[in-house]
C-alpha cells in the first residue's frame, strides 16, 4: 500500500526540455485536464515498472510537448498521424510499450482514418484520446466533438447540426470493430470519476504489456480557458452536460478472452537471407556453358518486337527468349507493353539480345517482328528495319505482310499448337520457328529457360514439344 502520493518518477524532476525559464510547472492552463491524465499515465508506467520500454507518440495539439514531462522515449509526429507512427514503431520493436496520446482534432478529425485502421488492425498500442470538445491550442475552434449549440470561435452562433453535423462518438465507433480489446470512456473530473479513470489508464497499458492488443481510453477533459469557465465549473459541465452526449463506461472489453501474442525475433544469417529472398541463383543452372550456334550476321544482335492478343502468352514468349539469351551469356533486356499501347486487350513486348551492352531497351525499329494477330501485324509491319524478319501466325492472320524489303516467315503456330493438344502453346511454336530459322538461340538454352520461367513444370513437356515442332516447321 502506497503511503505517499507524490510526483511519479516517470516525470522528469526538472523539465529541462521546456524552453522558457520555468522548468518546474507544465505549460498547461490552470485546471486543464491534460495534467490530470498525464499524472495517471505517469503513475501507471511507474507502477508497472516499464519506464525504459515506453515510447510516447507526441501529437499536435496542446499535448504536443509530452516530451517535456515524461522521462521516456518520444516521437513527435504530424497532426493526426500518431496511430500510424505508433504502428510503425511498435511493429519494428514489439517489446516497446507504445502510447499514442491524441486530442479530439488530432484523432477524430484529421487523423480519423489512421485511428480507425490502427484499431481495426488491432495494433498492440495504447491510445489515450483527450476529448475536450474544442481546439484548445489554436484558440478555441470547433472540434469534431463540439456539442450541438456550443459556441466556439468557428461556430460563433453555436454548432449547427445542419452545417457542422453531429459530434463524433469515437469510443462507440471504435468499439464496433472486431479487433480492439478494450474501449472505455472516462471523465477527468470528480473523485469518483478520477478513480475510474485511473483504473482504465492502468488497464489500457497493462493490456499492451501482456501482449493482448489494442486498447483505447477516451477521456472527457476540461478546457477551462477554451470554454471560458473556471476549473470547478468546467468539471461540473462535463459531468452534467458533456456526459449526456458522451456517456461514460466500458464499451468493449475482451481482455480476459484474447490470447496474448508472443513476439519472437527471427535471426538470420547472410546465407539464410539470400535463400529466403531467392537470390544467389542456386536453382539457376548458371555454371552450365552453352555452345552457341553459328549465326548469320544479319540475325545477330536482334531487336525483337513481339505482339498479339492478351492471353496468347506474348510476354512469356519474350521472357523465355531473354532468359535463354542470358544463359547463353548475351546481354538481354525485356520490356512489356506499357502505357498507351496497352489498350484493347493487345499485348506486346520488346526484347534485346546483344553481344554488347544494351543501350536503349526500347525497340522502336525492330529487326525481328513476331506477330500473332492481325492488328499487331498491321500496326508494326511498317516499323521493321529493312532487311529484318517478320514471323507471323498465318493460322490466325488472314493477310500477308506487304513489305518486300524484309524476310517474311509464315508460321501456322496456333494450328500446330492445336494439333499438339493445346492452342496455348502457339507462343512456344513461334519460339521454335524463330530460333530454328535464325539460329539465334539453341534448343538447349530455351528448354532450360522454360524450366526457370514456367512455374508449373508439368506444362513444360508440351512446351518443349511445341518448340521442337516450330523448329521442324521452318527447317
Amino acid at each position, binding site marked *: 500500500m502506497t503511503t505517499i502520493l507524490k510526483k511519479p518518477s516517470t516525470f522528469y524532476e526538472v523539465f529541462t*526540455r521546456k524552453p522558457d525559464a520555468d522548468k518546474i510547472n507544465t505549460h498547461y492552463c490552470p485546471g486543464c485536464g491534460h495534467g490530470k491524465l498525464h499524472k495517471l499515465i505517469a503513475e501507471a508506467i511507474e507502477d508497472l515498472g516499464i*519506464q*525504459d*520500454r*515506453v515510447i510516447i507518440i*507526441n501529437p499536435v495539439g496542446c499535448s504536443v510537448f509530452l*516530451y517535456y514531462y515524461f*522521462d*521516456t*522515449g*518520444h*516521437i*513527435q*509526429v*504530424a497532426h493526426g*498521424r500518431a496511430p*500510424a*507512427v505508433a*504502428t*510503425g*514503431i511498435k511493429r*519494428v*520493436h514489439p517489446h*516497446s510499450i*507504445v502510447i499514442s496520446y491524441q486530442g479530439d482534432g488530432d484523432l477524430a478529425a484529421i487523423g480519423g*482514418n*489512421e485511428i*480507425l485502421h490502427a484499431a481495426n*488492425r488491432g495494433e498492440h498500442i495504447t491510445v489515450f484520446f483527450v476529448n475536450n470538445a474544442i481546439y484548445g491550442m489554436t484558440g478555441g475552434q470547433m472540434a469534431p466533438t463540439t456539442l450541438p449549440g456550443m459556441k466556439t470561435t468557428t461556430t460563433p452562433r453555436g454548432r449547427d447540426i445542419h452545417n457542422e453535423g453531429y459530434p463524433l462518438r469515437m469510443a462507440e465507433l471504435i468499439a464496433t470493430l472486431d479487433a480492439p480489446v478494450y474501449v472505455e470512456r472516462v471523465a477527468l473530473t470528480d473523485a469518483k470519476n478520477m478513480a475510474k479513470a485511473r483504473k482504465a489508464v492502468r488497464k489500457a497499458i497493462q493490456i499492451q504489456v501482456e501482449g493482448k492488443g489494442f486498447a483505447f481510453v477516451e477521456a472527457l477533459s476540461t478546457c477551462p480557458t477554451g470554454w471560458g469557465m473556471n476549473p470547478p465549473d468546467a468539471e461540473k459541465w462535463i459531468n452534467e452536460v458533456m456526459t449526456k452526449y458522451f456517456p461514460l463506461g466500458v464499451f468493449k472489453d475482451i481482455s480476459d478472452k484474447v490470447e496474448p501474442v508472443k513476439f519472437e*525475433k*527471427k535471426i538470420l544469417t*547472410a546465407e539464410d*537471407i*539470400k535463400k*529466403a*529472398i*531467392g*537470390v*544467389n*541463383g542456386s536453382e*539457376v543452372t*548458371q*555454371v552450365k556453358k552453352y555452345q552457341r550456334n553459328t549465326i548469320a550476321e544479319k540475325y545477330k544482335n536482334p531487336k525483337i518486337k513481339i505482339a498479339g492478343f492478351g492471353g496468347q502468352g506474348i510476354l512469356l514468349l519474350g*521472357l523465355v527468349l*531473354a532468359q535463354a539469351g*542470358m544463359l547463353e551469356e548475351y546481354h*538481354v*533486356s*525485356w*520490356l512489356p507493353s*506499357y*502505357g*498507351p499501347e496497352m489498350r484493347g486487350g493487345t499485348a506486346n513486348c520488346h526484347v534485346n539480345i546483344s553481344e554488347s551492352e*544494351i*543501350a*536503349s*531497351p*526500347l525497340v*522502336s*525499329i525492330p529487326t525481328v517482328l513476331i506477330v500473332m494477330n492481325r492488328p499487331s501485324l498491321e500496326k508494326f509491319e511498317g516499323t521493321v528495319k529493312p532487311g529484318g524478319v517478320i514471323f507471323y501466325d498465318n493460322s490466325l492472320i488472314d493477310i500477308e505482310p506487304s513489305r518486300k524489303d524484309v524476310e517474311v516467315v509464315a508460321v501456322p503456330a496456333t494450328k500446330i499448337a492445336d494439333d499438339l493438344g493445346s492452342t496455348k502453346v502457339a507462343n512456344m511454336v513461334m519460339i521454335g520457328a524463330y530460333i530454328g530459322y535464325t539460329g539465334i538461340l539453341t534448343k538447349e538454352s530455351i528448354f532450360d529457360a522454360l524450366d526457370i520461367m514456367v512455374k508449373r513444370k508439368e506444362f513444360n513437356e508440351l512446351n518443349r514439344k511445341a518448340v521442337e515442332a516450330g523448329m521442324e516447321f521452318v527447317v
Partner: protein
Amino acid sequence: MPKQLMKGNEAVVRGAILAGCRAFFGYPITPASEIAEAASLLMPEVGGVFIQAESEVAAINMLFGAASGGVRAMTASSSPGISLMQEGVSYAAGAELPMVIVDIMRGGPGLGNIAPEQGDYYQVVKGGGHGNYKVIVLAPNSVQEMCDLTYLAFDLAEKYRTPVYVLADGFIGQMVEPVEFPEPKLPQIDKTWCVDGTAETRHNLITSIYLAPEELEQHNLKLKKKYERIKREEVRYEAYKVDDAEVILIGYGIVSRILKSVVDTMREDGYKIGLLRPITLFPFPEEKIRDLAKTAQIFFVVELSTGQMVDDVKLALNGMREVKFYGRCGGMVPSAEEIIEQVKSVFEETEKEIEHQR
C-alpha cells in the same frame, strides 16, 4: 554471384532486404504495386514487417515510426501517392530520419495515367513538402541499378540521416534485365539517436518541432550544412563519350538509355556528341556540367516531361552555353530516331550560324 533475370520493381525489394531493410509500408498504386507485392511476400521471410497501409499518408507515417526506431525501412509509390506522402517527408527531413522512398513515376497532373513519365522531378528533387529541406535523389536507369541504388540509398539515408528517394519511371520498374545481387548486410541499430524501447534510448527524442525562432533557424542552418556536404561528397553521374563532344545530351532514367543509343548511332555518322547522365538528381552534377561547357557548345536535355530537370541544367550553366530541350509526356516516349532528328537539326543550325558568322 551469378546473374538473375528480374523485373525492376522486384529487384528494388531484394536490393532493400540485402541492404538490411526490414520494414515496408505502402499503398498499392500502378505502376509501383509490384514493389509492395514483392515486399509482402519477402519481408516476413526475413523476419521483417510488411503493412498495406490505409493510405499513402498513413504509409509514410508508419515509415516515420519504424525509422524512428533506427530500423532500415522503406515505402514505394507512384506520383499521386508521392504527392500525398509529402507531409511525412517534410517531417522526416525535419526530424532527420533515415528512410528510403521509391517513386515509380507515372503520368500527371491529377489522375493523369499509368504510363511512364518524369513529371515528378519538381515534387521530388525540389522538395515538395513545406520548409527548407532537401532529399537525396537517386535515378536508376537499369534493373541492376534499381537494386544497387536502393541498396546504396539505405547507406546514404543513414549516413546523413535523411530521406532518400529512388526516382524511377514506369519503364525502369516494369523492365526485366539480368541482375547481380550484392552481399546481404545484417540489420544494425544506431542507438545514439533512435528510440527503440530500451534504457539506452530512453532519453532520445525524435522531433521536428523547434518552437523558439532562434532554435529553428539554427536547426535549418544545420540542415543546410548537411545538404552542402552532400553536394560536395555525393554527386554521381555517368559521362559517355563526352571528351571531344560538341553537343552534350543530358537525360536520366529510361531517357538516358535511349540517349545512349542516340550517341552511338550519331557517332557512327561522325557527329561529335556525348551523354551526361545524372545518377544523383540531388545533388545535381552541376560542376561536371560547367566542366563540360569548357569544350561543348550546346547542351541538349531530353525528358519525359515538359521540362523540369532542364531548369537545373540552366542554373548550372548560368547562361554560359545554350540549352536546348526536347520532351515528350503523358506516357509518350521518344524513339532514338525521333531524338536524332531533333539533335541533327541543332547541329545544322549551329553550322549555319558559323557560316553566317564567316
